[in-house]
């Protein structure tokens, strides 16, 4: 494999891993702080992609900035959606057993999938990236790399950095870290735990929706696209450890590399390699690489 | 090793990352003795008990049971070899009767997993051991009550009974008096004092009155190390112990929940 091909695959792996990180970080925070297992998380990713598709004609009509405004609208809508969903549905899950949470959120997946089918049909759609991001960049003479993919990686890194800053530098972030290790104590300190839960949940939803929106031009929009992302997010959370954002990042990149290079060297069983990785890590560290408290 | 020393820890240490929870602690549990372990919060008492019972592996040092090196034995195996353990937070089967709780615990010595024909409740050996344990714990009148409906003090008695159901030679009791009101404490203390007949008993407790009343030997731990180990009288007069407890602050020694 020559250097240019290797570089392209590395870039692909990083881009894939970072995108997965956006989805998985929301999942691991919701697990770690709210203590609920949310199977419908992949559906938020799907909603993001379909939202990008729905807003695309509008964004194209408003050139130069339309794309970013569409992203902005998507984020605002997803936060609102997350807020309402937490208040109307998720808050009933808090004291229930894992099995009940699993099944109720499974029911939510079915509801969201069918709503999508009713509102947006079952066809596969493409979403065009904005014109100024649609080109390619030359790499090492022979290969080229899609600018949009570089943009995706860049955006994901920016979001990861922003997430890191929020969690380590702000008071909300402090409450989040405290809540991850000791929920009752946070409540006893007078922090409104319900509000914190709502913020964390809405944030997790927004991350997944955002990931779906920016992924749409690269991966196209199709029914069931949330399923694979959900399961890979679970693998990431298991490998990285529940509640650990650092673990989610490490595991996402690991999964990205294993999957990408797996497809290059062993395409027939590429889909399996991630699970083999998970099995190997489970044998070594059953509680994940960076387990919190 | 004399025949009556049943369980020993020799220079046992346990580290969690950068924190040394237990630092070269040694202790010997002798048949017929109640050996209390006391210390301030975070002293390493619970960690030491967990290393003795096998729930946490020692980072270094050795544990011997009946003269055999059990340092690498997992907890169930040590339990079958004669160690019984009670917990600070009650670990009973809430939905079963008191009798069934003890019978199931006793079943550990008569497991017969492949015998599908015999009803578990009819297993004579586990029934007999359960009856004996319940009697010694003083719960005979409550035998058919559902465990979840017992009072807190009775639940703690059941916790002890379940330990006894496996006919152990060594008992590790982690704060058996936790949360018990004064009237039930007397009954509990009588039970605890009676447990040492034929057995070695380790008692982790914060209630100093209780400790000085029933302990035959007291080990004091501070910050993971053993600073003293002697009869109650000697401990009372020990300067290092007084400094550790009374030291700079004058906090009265009351029964506080432990994070050790």
């Amino acid at each position, binding site marked *: 494999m020559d250097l240019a091909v290797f570089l392209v695959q590395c870039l692909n792996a990083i881009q894939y891993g970072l995108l997965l990180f956006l989805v998985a970080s929301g999942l691991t925070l919701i*697990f770690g702080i709210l203590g609920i*297992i949310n199977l419908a998380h992949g559906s938020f990713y799907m909603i993001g992609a379909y939202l990008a598709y729905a807003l695309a004609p509008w964004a194209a009509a408003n050139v130069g900035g339309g794309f970013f405004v569409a992203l902005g609208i998507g984020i605002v809508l997803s936060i609102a959606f997350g807020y309402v969903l937490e208040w109307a*549905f998720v808050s*009933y899950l808090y004291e229930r057993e*894992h*099995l009940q949470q*699993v*099944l*109720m959120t*499974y*029911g*939510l*997946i*079915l*509801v969201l*999938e*069918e*709503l999508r*089918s*009713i509102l947006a049909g079952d066809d596969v759609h493409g979403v065009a990236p904005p014109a100024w991001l649609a080109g390619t960049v030359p790499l090492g003479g022979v290969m080229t790399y899609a600018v949009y993919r570089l943009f995706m990686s860049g955006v994901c890194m920016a979001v990861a950095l922003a997430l890191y800053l929020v969690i380590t530098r702000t008071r909300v972030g402090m409450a989040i870290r405290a809540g991850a290790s000791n929920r009752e104590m946070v409540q006893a300190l007078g922090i409104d735990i319900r509000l914190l839960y709502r913020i964390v949940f809405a944030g997790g939803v927004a991350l997944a929706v955002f990931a779906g929106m920016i992924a749409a031009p690269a991966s196209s929009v199709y029914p069931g696209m949330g399923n694979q992302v959900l*399961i890979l997010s*679970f*693998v990431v*959370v*298991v490998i990285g450890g529940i509640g650990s954002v650092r673990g989610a990042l490490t595991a996402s990149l690991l999964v990205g590399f294993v999957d990408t290079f797996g497809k290059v060297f062993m395409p*027939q*069983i*590429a*889909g*399996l390699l991630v*699970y083999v990785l*998970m*099995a190997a890590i*489970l*044998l070594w560290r059953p*509680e994940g690489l960076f387990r919190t408290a | 090793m004399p025949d009556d020393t049943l369980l020993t820890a020799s220079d046992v240490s346990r580290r969690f990352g950068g924190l040394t929870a237990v630092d070269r602690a040694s202790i010997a549990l002798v048949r017929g003795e109640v050996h209390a372990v006391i210390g301030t919060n975070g002293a390493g008492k619970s960690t030491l008990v967990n290393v003795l*019972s096998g*729930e946490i592996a020692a980072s270094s040092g050795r544990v011997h049971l009946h003269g055999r090196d059990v340092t690498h034995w997992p907890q*169930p*195996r040590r*339990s079958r070899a004669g160690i*019984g353990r009670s*917990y600070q937070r009650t*670990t009973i089967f*809430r939905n079963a009767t008191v009798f069934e709780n003890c019978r*199931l*615990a*006793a*079943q*550990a010595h008569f497991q*017969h*997993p*492949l*015998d*599908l024909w015999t*009803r578990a*409740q009819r297993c004579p050996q586990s029934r007999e051991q359960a009856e004996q344990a319940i009697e010694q714990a003083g719960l005979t009148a409550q035998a058919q009550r559902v465990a979840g409906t017992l009072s807190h003090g009775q639940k703690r008695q059941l916790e002890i009974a*379940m*330990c006894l159901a*496996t006919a152990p030679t060594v008992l590790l009791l982690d704060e058996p008096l936790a949360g018990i009101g004064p009237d039930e404490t007397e009954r509990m203390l009588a039970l605890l004092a009676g447990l040492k007949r034929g057995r070695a008993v380790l008692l982790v407790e914060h209630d100093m009155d209780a400790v000085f009343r029933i302990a035959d030997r007291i080990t004091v731990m501070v910050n993971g190390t053993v600073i003293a180990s002697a009869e109650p009288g000697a401990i009372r007069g020990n300067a290092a112990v007084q400094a550790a407890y009374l030291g700079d602050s004058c906090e009265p020694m009351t029964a506080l929940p432990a994070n050790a």
Partner: protein
Amino acid sequence: MKLPRIAIPPAIGRLLKFWPLAAALVVLALFPHIGGGFYVDLVLTTMILAIFALSLELLVGGTGLVSFGHAAFFGIAAYATVLLSAKTDAPSLAWLLPPVLAIAAIAACVIGALCLRTRGIYFIMVTLAFAQMTYFVFHDTSLAGGSDGLYLYAKPRLAIGDVTLLDLGRPMTLYYATLGCLVVVYALLALIGRARFGQALAGIKSNEQRMRASGFSTYPYKLAAFTLAGALAGVAGFLHAVKDGFVNPEILAWHQSGAVLLTLILGGIGTLRGPVLGAFVFVLLKEVFQSEAVFGAFARHWQLPLGLAIIACVALMPNGVVALPARFRRLRMPIPHAG
């Protein structure tokens, strides 16, 4: 006016406790003679689902292990049935069923050995991930027809020499063989439940820490339960392959694992009647929601009312249908008056 009390000898009293079960068995046995072909096929599908659900009950209700990947063993057995079935007109049941069950059991043992290193939420996620892995094995590789699936060459039969004892190619025979398997699995789980092995599993579910402190090595117990549950799911998978004569990767999809978990909670976890009842309720719900007679053109979006029904059932009836009579009785009890 009080009715006179009739003295019933205790032995008969114990037997009378089983009358609902016996009645159900009689109804199921007679059904093919009174129902139409479509309904008989539906009941057959339901009985297979009931066997599948019972196998999961051993894990969830019996040991407290919530597995979201149980469809893996159902699917592995179904595929093994097709792959191992000799390409003759009358493959032998005796040479087919034992290896199929053995394969399902081995797969469960290997996957269980890994999954059981985790607990709680991790365990649920890990079982889901491994089930997805087996889905990919069958979907992406050409091992077994890929996403197209595979056809069973001919339905197996049990024969001694020239005499055919059981021909599963005949619908009636398959129906009664399935009913027989349901009875055997039910009875086996009932035996296990009240034996020392089952009580140990129940103890592990109730308080694993206390079990370990008492001297039970809990990992082997859990692994044994996981393996047995996998083998019993294999029975259901085998019957499914024989009934449809066809397998495809969708039977391993995590939606199948979700459906069987749902069946359990619908019926009621912690009893053996629950999974069987739940299977009938689940199939009924699906049929109603998919029925164009009831919903017209909207019937193709049947997953929407199903999803809402799932949420409602879990929220309002977390103990399942089995617990309804007790709840109803509590509602009807007179409220005590003060003074």
